[in-house]
């Protein structure tokens, strides 16, 4: 049997031990890295979106330099892939996918969701996206053009969704609270609860 076919749990235990013994990755380093990664979440991206909805200068920054826009919200981006932001308009709706693996804007949204990594999503998003979006109950009007962005290289992409009607006068906190993970990938559209 090829040693790589060893059951995954056993591989992890063995690799963990070897990396510790060689001083490459120790249990405290692993624990700390998990703690830091757990701190990421879609709430970070939601705060960026809410600010863009209320601050035209920030919106312009987000669209021209997503990395700088994230850093302006104290999200560390040094050494991380550049962030691209896709603007939804009255005419165009964006959908992000990585057909080759699972490239996801982790720095601003946290761990990618299970569905983003699934074969069904990766296969259908580029070929039959409008039908696939119905799996989320999202029914894109025929008048809106759909632009599917396949993340194949160094950039990581998030969507800047449109601000829903009926939110006039809302604070950034109220606005951020209605922006969901799926809204920033393009599988759903923000709505007032």
């Amino acid at each position, binding site marked *: 049997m090829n040693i790589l076919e060893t059951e995954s749990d056993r591989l992890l235990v063995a690799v963990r031990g070897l990396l510790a013994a060689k001083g490459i*990755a120790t249990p405290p380093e692993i624990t700390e890295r998990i703690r830091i990664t757990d701190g990421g979440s879609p709430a970070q991206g939601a705060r960026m979106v809410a600010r863009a909805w209320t601050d035209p200068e920030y919106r312009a920054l987000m669209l021209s330099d997503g990395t700088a826009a994230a850093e302006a919200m104290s999200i560390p981006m040094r050494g991380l892939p550049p962030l691209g932001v896709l603007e939804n308009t009255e005419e165009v709706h964006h959908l992000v996918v990585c057909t080759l693996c699972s490239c996801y804007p982790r720095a601003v949204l946290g761990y990618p969701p299970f569905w983003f990594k699934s074969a069904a999503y990766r296969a259908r998003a580029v070929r039959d996206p409008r039908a696939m979006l119905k799996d989320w109950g999202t029914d894109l009007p025929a008048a809106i053009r759909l632009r599917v962005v396949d993340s194949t290289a160094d950039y990581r992409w998030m969507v800047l969704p449109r601000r829903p009607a009926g939110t006039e006068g809302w604070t950034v906190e109220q606005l951020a609270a209605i922006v969901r993970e799926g809204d920033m990938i393009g599988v759903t559209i923000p709505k007032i609860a």
Partner: protein
Amino acid sequence: MEKDVPRAMHDLGGVSQFMCETVDTEPHALTDFDKEVDAIRQLLGMKKVMSVDELRRGIEAIPEADYHRLSYYQRWIRSITDNLLVKGVITEAELRAALDAG
């Protein structure tokens, strides 16, 4: 269009086999296994031991049946192990000893 030329099995855009599959849109919490594998991958990258490109290559080398059978992070630990061996960071003897001891 799906070309007549065989595509690499991870290259899933538009692949007919999955076109009728409903997306499981439910959130599935990461397990401790998942989070530890993810953290190890990050540390190996930060310490310049293994790049994300090398991780992908290792995943793409997994035979097709195993690729679809293994969970996302099970593919990662398999690729990480493959890369550590290929790059000489660990030897097969060391790995066997660690597996026997574990």
